[in-house]
């Protein structure tokens, strides 16, 4: 059982739910107002839909048959494998979200080619309990892969939205599949999907730590540093094409900026003492970070174009781990000025920080949700460190995880899922959890490698 503190739960607010959906047989039992712009987004269609403003996560049964493979002339080819692979990627994405329950292909009564040619036999999909069904086709056009897909409401017997076409270079076929998964997620939840995104992290095998990156589903892993130096805390830029990270390659902890497009890496200043905890401003123009050159660790903001440095905090305690509000107006950070590490919020223009956490003896490593409504952080107490969320005012704290040493929370681009690292013994792995506290999943970094310090990218489109 997950730790979900009931005090945090608020009733579904004034957004005014859609009409009662008789066909939506979801047994939703925790009302948790987390959706933004979900209810009443103007969709004319009022059929099958997941209400993800509610917790409990009773997933929606969905059928995702193999996409058919088409020849250049549009004929169905029996031989292709791409269509099946694409539907497998979509299936895995949706299943992992915890909001969908893909039905096993072996249960399907209608074959993909007749589904594609004639549309769904809705009665056959109803029989196996599917509430939504997809139909899709894939073909090659030169070095491009082109995917067409349709989504149907099984009980109303209608299309959900229009058919849609995606294409990409063939070697990026997984990206096309993730686009389809995002589209399904959006049409059935009302929220933006997050499957076309990446994770930067630190991978460790033996003593060597390297900066690495992979797709959010663990595919396409790539190592970005050589492993000669200790490296820590990669952080995606808001447009997803750069990383800040820490490296000891000069012999001291320094911040580097890695260009993901050409692989080059550059030192971001060489201030005496500790240079750590880089965080991009949402507009990408500034970096908040920690320097100890004034005698103890303080928060600074650096304008990247000019190099102009502004000291933000002034206290003899430790101030570190800044994170920006999505509007760029505020910073949250942790400080032990009150005797133990606690979270503080201050204006990005400067001023007096305001303490926002009062429960527990250790609240640190805050990460402001891209939706702005919550801050995720590490909550310590009783010798354990767990992932928690609270509002930017520090209200409604909920502890989401239940382990010994969880840290480094980072948000999915839609502010729905939190990725973090978990240490068990001497091993560290990445995990994701829905912000309701359900659906905790291991996110494999492959083989016998350790993973830590995750940073979730924005949508990569």
């Amino acid at each position: 059982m997950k730790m979900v503190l009931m005090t945090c739960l608020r009733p579904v607010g004034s957004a005014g739910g859609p009409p009662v959906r008789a066909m939506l047989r979801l047994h939703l039992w925790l009302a948790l107002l987390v959706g933004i712009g979900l209810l009443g987004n103007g969709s004319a269609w009022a059929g099958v839909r997941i209400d993800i403003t509610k917790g409990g996560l009773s997933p929606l049964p969905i059928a995702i048959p193999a996409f058919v493979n088409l020849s250049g002339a549009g004929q169905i080819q029996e031989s292709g494998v791409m269509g099946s692979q694409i539907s497998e990627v979509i299936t895995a994405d949706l299943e992992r979200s915890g909001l969908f329950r893909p039905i096993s292909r072996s249960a399907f009564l209608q074959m993909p080619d007749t589904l594609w040619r004639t549309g769904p036999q809705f009665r056959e999909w109803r029989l196996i309990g599917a509430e939504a069904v997809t139909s899709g086709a894939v073909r090659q056009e030169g070095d491009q892969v082109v995917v067409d897909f349709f989504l149907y409401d099984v009980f109303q017997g209608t299309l959900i939205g229009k058919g849609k076409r995606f294409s990409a270079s063939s070697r990026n076929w997984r990206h096309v599949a993730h686009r389809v998964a995002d589209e399904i997620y959006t049409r059935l939840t009302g929220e933006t999907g997050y499957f076309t995104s990446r994770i930067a992290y630190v991978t460790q095998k033996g003593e060597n730590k390297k900066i690495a990156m992979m797709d959010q589903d663990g595919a396409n892993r790539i190592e970005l540093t050589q492993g000669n130096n200790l490296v820590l805390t990669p952080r995606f830029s808001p447009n997803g094409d750069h990383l800040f990270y820490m490296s000891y390659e000069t012999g001291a902890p320094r911040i580097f900026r890695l260009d993901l497009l050409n692989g080059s890496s550059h030192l971001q200043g060489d201030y005496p003492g500790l240079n750590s905890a880089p965080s991009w401003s949402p507009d990408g123009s500034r970096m908040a970070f920690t320097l100890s050159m004034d005698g103890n660790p303080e928060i600074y903001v650096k304008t990247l174009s000019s190099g102009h440095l502004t000291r933000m905090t002034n206290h003899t305690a430790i101030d570190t781990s800044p994170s920006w509000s999505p509007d760029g107006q505020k910073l949250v950070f942790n400080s032990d000025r009150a005797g133990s590490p606690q979270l503080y919020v201050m204006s990005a223009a400067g001023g007096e920080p305001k303490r926002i956490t009062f429960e527990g003896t250790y609240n640190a490593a805050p990460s402001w949700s891209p939706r702005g409504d919550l801050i995720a952080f590490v909550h310590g107490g009783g010798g354990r460190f767990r992932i928690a969320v609270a509002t930017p005012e520090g209200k409604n704290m909920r502890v989401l995880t239940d382990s010994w040493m969880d840290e480094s929370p980072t948000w999915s681009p839609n502010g729905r899922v939190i990725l973090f690292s978990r240490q068990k013994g001497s091993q560290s792995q990445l995990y994701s959890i829905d912000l309701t506290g359900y659906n905790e999943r291991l996110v494999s970094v492959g083989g016998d490698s350790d993973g830590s310090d995750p940073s979730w990218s924005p949508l990569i489109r």
Partner: protein
Amino acid sequence: MKRFGWLAVVLLSLGLLSGCGSTPKGGADDQAGADGSGGRGVGRLGGSSSSLDDPSRRGGAGAYRYDVNVEPEHRVYFDYNSALINDKSAQVLAHNAGWILAHRPKVQITIEGHCDERGTREFNLALGQQRADAVVRFLVGQGMEAGRLKAVSYGKERPLVPSHDDSAWSKNRRGEIVLR
């Protein structure tokens, strides 16, 4: 609080070198600096007027007693979530300062700050920096040149003991004096 506690320890130790064999220059300066300090043990320091050029002299009359010809452990330990130099660590650091000044007068020295594995990576990097900086300040207070000392935090990245209990943690919360 932290600052004053540290200051008292430094003041305590200032006269020490005069009693335990240091470079004449540093020793003379430090002895002068001890005058008027109100910390415990200061009175006893006044009686320590042994010859500064005798590195073999065993111990001093002050708070810190050590044999300057015995190489000290180049490592000190800290309390949980603290960068304060405790009495035990002050003793070891004083011994290090005396020994280094006597036997390694030229080498560059890196002071590494380390933490146990509990808590966040970034907070521990900051805490490790505070520990390393505290050691540097203490050693400078013992007469070492600041220019020879460089503080580097490794946070919780380099545990000395790779297990996960109080015993391991107490050894991992440390400052390391690395002679190059």
